């Protein structure tokens, strides 16, 4: 096979697991190399995806039009009520605004917007250029908040000020300003917040239902199907349950410090991790054994129907190989386990934003010979997919057409998933989607699989 080089300067972000020799740790938490075709995005993107699902707030992007246009309804974060988050609001900054400042335009836009939509709160996202021209967004927000009586909250998400992870942090920082401003009266002692669950394809509803069935009150989901009033009283919960470690751990830590709320990290993907996420919550309420009983009951019932239904997929998929390249590393762990449970091995595992601990754990979990990458690019991904003979790629929008050009199956485990992949039902959906894609007859027509004229 033709050897494709790895980008110079990226050697330390790629690793092939080989237990025989001592290996250096993978380098991560770095910015992308200038000139690389990176799959990563920016600070603004990170903030935008985290706050986006809050459905009864307006999300005003302060900057030139692009930042608002590209993030208009891109995430299938479902709301059970208002859908203000699915509209696109921008101050559409022009050259004169860049020269003379955009504060007036921001003020006018906010007033117009709040008058038009009467939202519960407003989030104002700073973009690159706002960071440069020095608009005092804080002051404008304070003024508008005073005049309109609703929380008007700046999000410091200038694109160049770090990576997507810094955007998550900026979003969490904004949420912290809301948390603690609502009444915690009537909140049960047996209560949690669900953090880092964005209700893509309705996943938060599934998870919430499990916990409620266990007799636990869910105070707020941050931010899936999110509501401002719920966020404001989130400090009344007894425990924070954090999924998608990358985006919300910071918030959990802050809430622990400020409100003394402990947190646990969970994952809702795959039978093993889903069950664990119920048990891990139940053990936090030892004075209520019925909660653990209920958790066991749910798991046993769900698994009883799920397990047999997975066997037909497992039979067909055993021996097939998968490549995983997703945003957060925590998701990779779950996916490896979930794939194993349907007979598939993982030959490539990587993430855009994993940290040192994540990669150490990833290496421990992976089989010999698995390639581990941080902040990868299309050249590397296709190289390893071909070399390792993967049958499936799990990734996001920019990875999808690469898989299809190579002639292998694909599963979107990112913003564009169309069916819930979380929870027990989600595991079934995941197996079905993987099965349908990997086993599809279309691949036989691909030249690589011998499909020529």
């Amino acid at each position: 096979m033709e050897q494709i080089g790895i980008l110079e300067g990226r050697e330390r972000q790629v690793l092939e697991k080989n237990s025989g020799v001592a290996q250096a740790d993978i380098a991560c938490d770095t910015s992308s190399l200038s000139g690389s075709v990176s799959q990563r995005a920016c600070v603004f993107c990170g903030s935008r995806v985290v706050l986006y699902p809050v459905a009864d707030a307006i999300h005003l992007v302060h900057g030139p039009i692009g930042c608002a246009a590209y993030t208009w309804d891109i995430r299938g974060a479902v709301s059970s009520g208002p859908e203000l988050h699915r509209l696109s609001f921008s101050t559409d900054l022009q050259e004169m605004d860049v020269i003379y400042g955009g504060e007036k335009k921001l003020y006018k836009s906010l007033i117009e917007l709040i008058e038009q939509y009467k939202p519960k709160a407003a989030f104002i996202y700073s973009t690159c250029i706002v960071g440069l021209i020095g608009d005092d967004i804080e002051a404008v927000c304070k003024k508008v908040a005073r005049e309109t009586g609703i929380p008007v909250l700046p999000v410091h998400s200038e694109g160049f000020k770090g990576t997507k992870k810094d955007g998550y942090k900026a979003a969490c920082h904004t949420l912290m300003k809301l948390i603690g401003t609502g009444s915690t009266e009537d909140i049960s002692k047996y209560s949690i917040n669900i953090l880092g669950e964005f209700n893509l394809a309705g996943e938060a509803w599934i998870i919430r239902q499990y916990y409620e069935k266990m007799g636990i009150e869910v105070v707020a989901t941050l931010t899936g199907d999110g509501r401002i009033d719920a966020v404001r009283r989130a400090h009344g919960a007894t425990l924070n349950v954090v999924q998608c470690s990358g985006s919300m751990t910071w918030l959990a830590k802050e809430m622990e410090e400020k409100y003394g709320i402990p947190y646990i990290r969970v994952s809702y993907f795959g039978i093993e991790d889903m069950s664990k996420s119920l048990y891990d919550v139940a053990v936090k309420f030892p004075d209520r054994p019925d909660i653990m009983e209920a958790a066991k009951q749910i798991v046993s019932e769900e698994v009883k129907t799920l397990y047999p239904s997975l066997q037909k997929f497992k039979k067909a998929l055993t021996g097939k190989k998968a490549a995983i390249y997703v945003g957060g590393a925590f998701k990779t762990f779950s996916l490896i386990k979930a794939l194993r449970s349907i007979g598939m091995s993982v030959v490539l595992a990587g993430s855009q934003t994993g940290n040192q601990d994540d990669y150490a754990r990833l290496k421990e979990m992976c089989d010999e010979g698995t390639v581990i990458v941080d902040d990868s690019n299309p050249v590397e991904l296709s190289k390893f997919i071909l070399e390792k003979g993967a049958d499936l790629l799990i990734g996001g929008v920019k990875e999808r057409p690469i898989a299809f050009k190579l002639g292998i199956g694909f599963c979107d485990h990112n913003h564009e998933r169309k069916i819930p992949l979380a929870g027990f039902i989600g595991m079934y959906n995941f197996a079905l989607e993987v099965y349908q894609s990997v086993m599809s007859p279309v691949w036989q027509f691909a030249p690589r699989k011998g499909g020529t004229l």
Partner: protein
Amino acid sequence: MLLRHTSKEVKVREGLTINPAKTCQPIGAMYAALGIHGCLPHSHGSQGCCSYHRSTLTRHYKEPVMAATSSFTEGASVFGGQANLLAAIDTIFAVYEPDIIAVHSTCLSETIGDDLQQMTKKAKDDGKIPEGKYVIYASTPSFIGSHVTGYANMVTGMATQFAESTGVKKSQFNIIAGWMEPSDMREIKRLAKVMGINIVLFPDTSDVLDAPQTGKHVFYPKGGTTVDELKSSGDSIASLALGSVSAEPAAIALEKKCKVPFETLDIPIGLSATDRFIMAISKVAGVTVPEEVTADRGRLVDIMCDMEQYLHGKKVALFGDPDQLLPLTEFLLDLSMKPVHIVSGTPGQRFEKQMRQLLDERSPETNFKSGLQADMFLLHQWMKNEPVDLLIGNTYGKYMARDEDIPFIRFGFPILDRIGHSYFPNIGYGGSLRLLEKILNAIMDRQDRDALEEKFELVM
């Protein structure tokens, strides 16, 4: 309903844009650059810009879209992006091995005052550009114009930075493509062949963004205008620029640099615009219109006559980009339909004037707005005040179509939820026939859906 918040009463807004009918310059520059063979577009700004543009183009074309980024950090934003760009040029030529890097700026690099001309010159002086390779650039600040402006700027960059005049004219013509799909560009090349003229078409995204499945992921698909072709454009007899906003600036630049005369035409969407396009070729190249083309025209006219009764007086709302909207509006008027609301987020006096002139002559009561606050929210409000039978525009129109329960045809950029635009042209007589078929299907399907049982017709 998602847009139930849209109020009927239209109030003048001074700051706010709601649901934009445009996006920013850099994505247009990236799209244009993909129409050069062996070219890697490069975004000189934060990582996010490049990522968003690639994602949007990928969603629109269902194809991998390759582009690199300078990955600005806080340091670069304070000290300037030169170091980033120079490092990027090194990395790109070493690893991704393109023939050309086409750099475009962003609001960030423009605001800190990065000068791409000076930086690319420095790269050259420092020996960072290998023999036979090129770095071209276009300034594309996001706070001016729209995605169409960015496209025009990059195409102009191609003309000014590649075209050479050797003093010896070549027996060829330039066709400067306004923003159109790979399918449209392929059709332009077919038509030129049928007309018997040699052309240099630039940019040309056919065989780049409609590439076949080969089992390989290639960075540089076989399509795209070559460097040799671009260089030779300075020796062409004349240029035809398709689109006054997206193509004409390049034609003007080429005339200035290499004295290639030009004529600006509409993108040949619909009967009249295609007529003008074919006649312009015939005139400028001194060729007669072949029977094949006349027959294509005849077929389009035939269907226009056959089906006129279903279209007469039907009200249409449309939004999109200037160079598409003008000929499309004309086509709708030729079909005896009524374009009642027209919106484009792209500003421009020239377009404003051209559209006003067309409307003053043939449809003076039409609501038309372009530029700031000419967004889909306004269009939706107009539609609430004067309902329409059909909406034409990019994918984002689906919200309004659903909310108002009216037929909808996807046309323009981006189309994120259907395929076809990359493969079937909307230009020329054949493409216009396809567009007409879509319009008819949308309206007649609706008529069938709404017909009372006794009025439900078999023969239409």
